[in-house]
């Protein structure tokens, strides 16, 4: 059991990072795991890279400015979303999507892919999940929500590329 529930996972479960729903955000999604009823509401805020002041980044790159969420779920899904926020916030969207692919490949590999710790950081702790097919959806719940929200945001931003980028919504959060 300790191989599945590594201490890193239990730490993130007990003390989740970046929890709560915040503004500003570009897209909000609600994802559920229909087999167990777990659910997550997740928001993404992307900004064009130049706003970060990072000259090395291409101007049409997007940076993940914030990922915020509220969720109901098991330790695996809660911890994995917490790890996702650490790996996403402040990184380029392209890099985060590559990390997401690496993470997805590892947890769906039935134990054949061990994952690259340099890419996955704390995400490497979820290597044990791949041996429990029933838990893979738990580990991916937050990541798939992020992918969906980021895709929606990127599509909306590209639709307004030539025009001035519409400012993000600044709604107050009840």
């Amino acid at each position, binding site marked *: *059991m300790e191989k*599945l*529930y590594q201490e890193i996972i*239990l730490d993130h479960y*007990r003390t989740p990072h970046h929890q709560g729903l915040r503004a500003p955000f570009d897209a909000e999604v609600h994802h559920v795991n229909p*087999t*167990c*009823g*777990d*659910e997550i509401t997740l928001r993404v805020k992307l900004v064009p890279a130049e706003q970060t002041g990072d000259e090395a980044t291409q101007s049409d790159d997007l940076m993940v400015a914030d990922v915020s969420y509220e969720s*109901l*779920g*098991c*330790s*695996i899904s809660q911890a994995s979303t917490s790890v996702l926020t650490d790996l996403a916030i402040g990184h380029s969207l392209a890099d985060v999507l590559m990390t997401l692919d690496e993470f997805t490949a590892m947890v769906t590999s039935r134990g054949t892919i061990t994952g690259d710790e340099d890419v996955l950081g704390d995400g490497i702790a979820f290597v044990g999940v791949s041996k*429990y097919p029933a*838990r893979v959806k*738990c580990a991916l719940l937050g990541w798939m929500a992020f992918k969906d929200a980021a895709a929606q945001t990127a599509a909306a931003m590209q639709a307004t590329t030539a025009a001035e980028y519409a400012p993000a919504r600044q709604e107050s959060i009840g």
Partner: protein
Amino acid sequence: MTDQLATDQLATDQLEAHALSTGPGAGDLPEEPVVPAAQLSPAPEAAGTGTLSSVDVERIRADFPILERTVRDGKPLVYLDSGATSQRPVPVIDAEQEYVTGHNAAVHRGAHQLAEEATDFYESSRERIAAFVRVGRADELVFTKNATEAINLVAYSLSNATFSTEPAAQRFRLGPGDEVVVTEMEHHANLIPWQELCRRTGATLRWFPVTDDFRLDLSTIDEIINPRTKLVAFTHQSNVLGTINPVAELVDAAQRVGALTVLDACQSVPHSPVDLIGLGVDFAAFSGHKMLGPSGVGVLYGRYDLLEAMPPFLTGGSMIEQVFIDRATYAAPPARFEAGVPMTSQAVGLGAAVDYLRQVGMTAVADHEATLTGYALQELSAISGLRIIGPSDLVDRGGAVSFVVDGVHAHDVGQILDDAGVQVRVGHHCAWPLHRRFGIAATVRASFALYNTVDEIDALVAAVRDSQRFFGAG
């Protein structure tokens, strides 16, 4: 036990006499003893007496090969998920094999010997299953793919009636202003078909809420079941709570206003003596794989005068009377509702399953499971931080025990249990509205069958305590 369930001490002799007299071996198949009942293992000594000793249970367990295996690095299998699907005894496996290796053919087609034998096997199963649920006319039983299909058969037949020009079908028409009643504790299989029927016809869906003590709230029964009500669909025994519902009260209310009743009997028929005629329902559904039989076969019981007036659901071969290029007329029930070549070996297996259950004795099965349920409730309730989601005593309650553990999500409890070899269900158990009612996303459910033991409940309880230690709760 309700009086609906504790109907009688089985009338075992009568039933066995009936089953044997109607089995194919009793008639015109002289070469081989083909009655699956003849393959039964030696009967447990307590058969029919209303109790199972630990020796009996060990003998029963020996009939279930899967119970000998280990899981998760050598842990003995503790199978507490029979509410999802039950395991199969050797006589069921053998009956299917005997049918497939010796008698397989398309039933109700052709006039060759194999076709006759196959048809006899298939129809003999129908008769023995009918007798098992106290239905005197086997043609009131329709074989379906599963219980879900059985309920959908009724729902789709009613919506087909809504668009039918057949005079006989007019009584089943539904439209705006009509009401269909369900309950908040239904399995999705007895909820979504009615949601969809209402959507298609414009009828209104209503439901009985569930009380804080896990019972149907019938305080407004005469308001919820009213002259606009056309159909009342409800479960006999909740697959989550274990609650056994007051069938007689609901049937009386429905009959007063002329509404049809549909009973989800999936969780009652495998675990207690059930008399469908005595219950007075118009329709009932149950599934083979939850009662020691194969998957791929379910049963719909329907009052014959209703089935006879109902339009078909699935159409095609075998369900017709006469076919012309532009129209057709339909066979009498049950054939009208069994389009295509049916699941024959599964039906044969289910026939063997009811023979097995009848030989053990359903009162004995119910008593044994009540003992297990009582012990589980007692031991689980003693764990601090654990809350039972269901009645805390055995009054009108069956053997599904669902619970939540403070600070440990049901999936995580289930994972620790699995590591100990204890196989339980976690999640919403296809009863999401019921879980919403209690503000919980998921529960852990242990469910019992005739082959479970008190020792297995000890293993469950120990593993639950381990999960609390592992996650630092409790």
